[in-house]
């Protein structure tokens, strides 16, 4: 497959992911304002973070496909933020689990029932969009 096609596919993939994250972010903010949905936990700043990260990806997508570093910068920073948000949520889940059992010491607790936030899936999915990072030296400042 040609390099151009690979980058194009990768960017399309990430853009779809970013669009989902954007919608998720909006629903998380809506949720904290009282408009509850099933799939989005209410979280005003969490939602804001998702919106910023995904806007960066979408903003940089077009110029990334054109092999311009200007686009790649936004694309990669956005992806990095999305991955950071995901990672943070994984850490939160682990810390909550640990905390639950510490607080249970000496008491009869039922087993821990985890609720997995959608950001955790996004973490793994976003990793797949990193392809352009590994071919970044093919990018240029301006269209040649």
């Amino acid at each position: 497959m040609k390099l151009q096609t690979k980058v194009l596919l990768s960017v399309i993939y990430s853009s779809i992911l970013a669009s989902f994250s954007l919608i998720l972010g909006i629903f998380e903010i809506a949720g904290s304002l009282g408009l509850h949905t099933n799939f989005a936990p209410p979280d005003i700043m969490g939602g804001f973070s998702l919106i910023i990260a995904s806007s960066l990806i979408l903003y940089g997508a077009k110029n990334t496909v054109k092999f311009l570093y200007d686009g790649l910068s936004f694309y990669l920073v956005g992806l990095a933020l999305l991955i950071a948000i995901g990672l943070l949520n994984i850490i939160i889940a682990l810390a909550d689990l640990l905390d639950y059992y510490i607080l249970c010491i000496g008491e009869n607790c039922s087993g821990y029932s985890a609720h997995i936030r959608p950001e955790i899936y996004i973490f793994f999915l976003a990793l797949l969009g990193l392809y352009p990072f590994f071919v970044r030296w093919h990018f240029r400042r301006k269209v040649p």
Partner: protein
Amino acid sequence: MLIALAGNPNTGKSSLFNAITGAHQHIGNWPGVTVEKKEGTITFEGKKITIVDLPGTYSLTAYSLEEVITRNFILEEEPDVVVDVIDATNLERNLYLLTELMELTDRIVIALNMFDEAKKKYKLDVKKMRELLGLPVIPTVAIKDKGIKDLLHACLHGYFKPKKLSYPEDVENRVEKLQRMMENLDLKNKRWHAIKLLENDSEVRKKFANLGRKDILHEAEHLRHEIEDIYGDDIETLIASFRYSFAHGLFHEVAEPLNVGGVTITDMIDHVVAHKIFGLPIFLVVMYLSFEFVFVVAAPFQDAIDLIFNGKTLASGQHINGLIDISYHWMASFMPNWASSFINYGMLRGLAAVLTFTPIIMFLFLILSILEDSGYLARVAFLMDKLMRKIGLEGRGIISLMLGFGCNVPAVMSTRALKNERERELSIALNPLIPCGARIQVFAFITAIFFKHNQALVMWSLILLSMGVVALLGYVYSKTIFKGKAEPFVMELPPYRVPSLKGIFIHMWEKSEGFLRKAGTIIVGAAGIIWLLAALPWGVQFGGENSYIGQIAHFLAPVGAPFGITPESIIALFFGFFAKEVVIDVFYVLYGTKEALFAAMTPLQAYSLLLFILFYTPCVATLATIYNETKSTKFVLFVILEGFALALFFSFLAYTIGSFLGVGG
């Protein structure tokens, strides 16, 4: 034969010198000065060659001793060949010196040192460089002894036909005119002298004054003014600009940067995080994610430490003893109850409180260390500067404001760097409004207790509010009290790097240790005083209405009421005046446990208290520093009043609106 090695500092010039001369070196000083002079003699192809290592310089102006030594040596001793040692990995920067050397001598051999490293950075066209310059260009790797023979060979048999660096006609005419006036002087390289005279070079002017040729000096002065009038620029800039343009042009002719068109990862990140629209939101997100991380990860550790020291009361009402309870019972077996109570429930519980709070501090500093070591914090300063400019502040003392997040004392001191008096006063006046490390600790403590589900959001809102207030007040002040124009400046931003794990942990430990040590010593004192206040006069219920502390609280109650601030909080705030982090200690001593503290205030009251702590008077150390820096009691009073006014305003506002809306009650 005499060969001189010239070049910028850190180009591997010394390694090259060692590679050429081996053990045959002689180290002395340049005549009359303490700059080191290295000389060596070798025999190459049957010829005896003396090699002199000149001091490393970036240019050949008269501004520094090293530069004067270098150019005088080349001018007076006339070495047979000057080797310009160039760090090929920073080619463009190194080419400026070459332009100056080319004016001094024709016999230059260029050593492109660190060539192996440079090949990873650019595609270098050595042949083209030779043709463009008309000089031998030899790739070398001094530390691996590569290219040394080629270099010496070029020195002996090289082809020197250098292209002249020519200035525009208006300048060249005048250079020639001066040269003609020097005709019957015994001077080497008259063209160079003429150019330097036009450049107003102090050393060369001295030389002509000593020669008694005032006429040449006057003519040079006259010609210089002519040129400056033509170009509307001062001549030094003009000539330096030509040289830079030459170096710049040459660089782009011979080197083609490899990765991303010469764009590094640092450039790419900066392109986004310093963006005019996205920069600020990204900062807000980074800040939020950082706080979220701190609170969430610290929680299990805090709970574990709490459990170990304070034990736990089960739902059934049964109490599991913690270390403190065990210690209390043990001590009570051989000393009076009140003494055991004082030691265990007064002091030990306070110390335990500090310990349970330690995970938050550690993680807070961990994340701050990461942000700092990675280079992101420097960008935040830049971003804030840009923002300030937008509202007409032109980044006044933004660095000192950013320092304020660490501690206001050095931040206030750093305003000394500001040239402009107005600017200085403005940033001193704004500085105490930046929450320092100690206040952030207090926020973290209160937030962790009262806002289980929105900790990061609450912290985030406080920092954001303080920055907003600073920006707004800064704008108002600069239009009213502290009028004046701001200084333009630029910051050198370090490249991003992945912080080393060791570095982060050392950083984190240093900072946390400072907190622990301080909190540990203060708590013994503060706990003692407060325990006494709570226990006296004799016979009252501990901390009850009739104890001293109860009486003080009763007296203070109406003061805090409109803001929802409890009397105990006022006591804590009072102690906080001496050092902000004491607030934490006082709360623990007064309330004993987190649960008791949690029960004493509503979240709304806690938030109102946070706002009060955010702004109310800076600590004693900061005030003393402000006095030292301004020598004005009025200024200190102004800062205190400013703080209280803001504190009262915001906590009243928050409490009133919150109560009205019924939030957090």
